[in-house]
């Protein structure tokens, strides 16, 4: 073949020009294009972060007591500097509204991150903490405490402690199944669904013994709520979620490799089986810590990563933090909607996320590339 007659691509012309003219690598077009591409991703992440910040501000203003955004942040600042001027505003913002908003922020970020990790690990768009049975295990633990009074802890800690301990059981079941059958991602999801059905059935049996008080409390917990969460609960949620999310982001490269398939991952030095187990443990840790306090809030872990992928793409290095911010904003805004749409009656946040998430997910399924389902 005569080299002078070969048609040259744009990219190779740029490289040739650089090589022949001694251009700086940093200013070559492919590199600039790539930098723009990365900058766009960071711009989206910052946009989602800004949306979260605004949602927090809005969350602090929503309520019967009229307080503007500026006044809310001013009250917060006065509280932090020990210069409280309005005692009732201080209590309303700091002790009543802000714990709820922060719970939404932490729970939303944690559930979205957990969902993102699950979807990467299992290469399955339906994967999230709920389809792995984690939430059902937590639900059974709570049901046990509420209806029968059987709990590891006593008093007001009964439900929370039970939910946490029982949410770890499905995780270990799935890990055990994976070891026994050298399970593929599909088998693992099916094991999670099987565990979910078992725990749901056990919860239903327990409800037969429930009195109206217990059934009502159980309903609120199973629907998912940010109400009644105080600063002591938020602290625990925050610490555990931060650990889980930070570790997940540190594993973003490994997650990317896992999502290309087990063979590719092994070829690049990743033990796919072990990595999957680590990810499961992280998801269980984060999900259990959140669900123990909020009850079962659905769709955040499922929908948030999908929405974010439309803007960011599938690179977990950017997808994870963006999903965390988006999930946080989504949950806070859902709670605001629940508190205002039928005011003074409050719709629990789990109802709102189901209303928002269900149609959103249907839309995603319809427009989704079929190759994902292969």
């Amino acid at each position, binding site marked *: 073949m005569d080299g002078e007659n070969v048609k040259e691509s744009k990219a190779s012309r740029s490289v040739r020009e650089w090589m022949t003219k001694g251009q700086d690598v940093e200013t070559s077009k492919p590199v600039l294009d790539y930098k723009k591409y990365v900058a766009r991703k960071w711009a989206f992440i910052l946009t989602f972060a800004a949306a979260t910040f605004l949602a927090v501000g809005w969350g602090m203003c929503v309520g019967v007591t009229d307080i503007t955004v500026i006044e809310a942040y001013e009250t917060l600042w006065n509280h932090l500097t020990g210069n409280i001027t309005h005692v009732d505003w201080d*209590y309303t913002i700091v002790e*009543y509204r802000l714990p709820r908003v922060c719970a939404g922020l932490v729970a939303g970020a944690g559930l979205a991150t957990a969902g993102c990790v699950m979807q990467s690990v299992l290469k399955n768009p339906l994967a999230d903490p709920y389809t792995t049975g984690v939430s059902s295990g937590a639900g059974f633990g709570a049901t046990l405490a509420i209806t029968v009074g059987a709990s590891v*802890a006593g*008093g007001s800690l009964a439900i929370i402690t039970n939910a946490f301990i029982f949410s770890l059981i499905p995780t270990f079941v799935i890990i055990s199944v994976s070891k026994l059958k050298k399970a593929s991602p599909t088998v693992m999801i099916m094991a999670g669904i099987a565990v979910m059905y078992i725990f749901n059935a056990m919860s239903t049996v327990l409800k037969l013994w429930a*009195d109206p008080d217990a059934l009502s409390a159980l309903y609120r917990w199973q629907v998912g709520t940010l109400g009644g969460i105080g600063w002591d609960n938020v602290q*625990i949620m925050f610490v555990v979620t931060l650990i889980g999310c930070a570790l997940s982001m540190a594993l973003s490269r490994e997650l990317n490799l896992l999502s290309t398939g087990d063979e590719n991952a092994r070829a690049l030095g990743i033990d796919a089986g072990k990595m999957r187990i680590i990810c499961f443990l992280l998801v269980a840790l984060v999900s259990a810590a959140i669900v123990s306090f909020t009850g079962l809030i659905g769709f955040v872990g499922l929908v948030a990563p999908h929405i974010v992928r439309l803007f960011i793409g599938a690179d977990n290095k950017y997808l994870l933090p963006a999903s965390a911010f988006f999930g946080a904003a989504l949950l806070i805004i859902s709670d605001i909607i629940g508190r205002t749409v039928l005011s003074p009656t409050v719709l629990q946040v789990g109802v709102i996320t189901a209303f928002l998430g269900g149609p959103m997910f249907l839309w995603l399924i319809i427009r989704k590339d079929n190759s994902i389902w292969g």
Partner: protein
Amino acid sequence: MNQKAIIAIVLVAILAVAAIAAALMLTGGDKSSDEEKYLATGNLTVLGNADNDNKLTDHDIEIINDIIKAGVWNKKAYPLADANNDGVVNESDISYLKNLMKGKNATPTKMYYYNTWNEIGSVRFPVTGNIGTMYWEQADLAILLGLWDRVKAVGSGSLSEEKNPGWQSLYSYGKGYNAEPEVVAKSYEAAGVTAVIAYIQGDGTAKDIDAYLKGTNSKIDLLCLPTSMNGRVVTAGVLLCCEEQSEKYMKYYDEVMAYVQDKIGNVKDAPSCVTVMMRSTTTTADIRFLNMSTTGESNGLYTYMLQSPSEVYIVEPTNSYATHTDIEWLNSKNPDWIIFCSSGAWTTGNTQEQNMAQFKQECDDIFSSTTAYKNKHIVATANGTMNSFFGCFAYPKLLSYLYDEIEDDYADKMVQAFFDEKFAYYTLDNMPSYQFYSM
């Protein structure tokens, strides 16, 4: 990152969280059992009620005097002697109690009482301003105590014009019983409310509301009353300065229980029965029997029937408000009578004829294989009859079906007395589901 290191970090994190949970378990939890010995056991849980009866009287002052003279306060015997809640019983408690006994004319002060959770709550006494009620049960209590004109804010769930005239023009806490604290607090500005009768069941938000009102220095006091029905009536009567009405109610209650004991207390061969909760979903394969529970202990059909000589068949376990079983179990027990409360199956809009038709249909569908059905020994009424303040007035009427010794005239007189004394606004004519239906 090294995989072993990551596994190690994750395991440490799990252990750390487990340790936190364990620490919470060890440091949290209920109060020590020693405190339970000093709790109020009667109906009136107001501090100052030294003799633990239903009133604040001179006899309470006498007891406090005796304690002062003795120099020792037996907290177990007289848990309510410390009227001013300062931890000691002395002359200041006597002057404090004397002021409380002035009722509406008392010098403003705090009245302390043991609340729903057996903690000491307080109200700014005397309570003469507007009132809020968080749910229908609390609205019923306000009406019973003659306070409906002062109710300016309501939880609007299950209210009706027949039972709660004018409710729609009142400030609303929302449809459910879990009112938001800010909404409750706003009722001071919006409706001049200074005291709210709280919904106190276990799934309510009363504790959150109480904390919010205290944290914001609200002018509203949340009344978290004792869990027993009579405790609510008597304690609210004193806290809200309407003892006349609460004492009137208790007088009827005592009279009815004395009458029942007198007429049938020694009856041999009392008819047996089962108490059933009928819902629109009830089938022969799934019948719900009323049992004992924290709710059932305080009020309700089952509790009333336990005070009669009848054997009331129940389904184990007995730690639940209701357990489910089927027609085979019912036939195996073969009770003489089936008594059912209809919950959700009879709408308040039904006429008496419609209720009767529905009652007959339910008997045919569910109980036709039973001996009680064949003997026409089935009686029914709405859940609101037997599980509300109307219950004790309706009790003789219910028993009159099972026992010939209970006079029909007396039973009907008691039912009518509930309405004549204005303990409720509705009548059996405009609330026909509250009537009794028999085969």
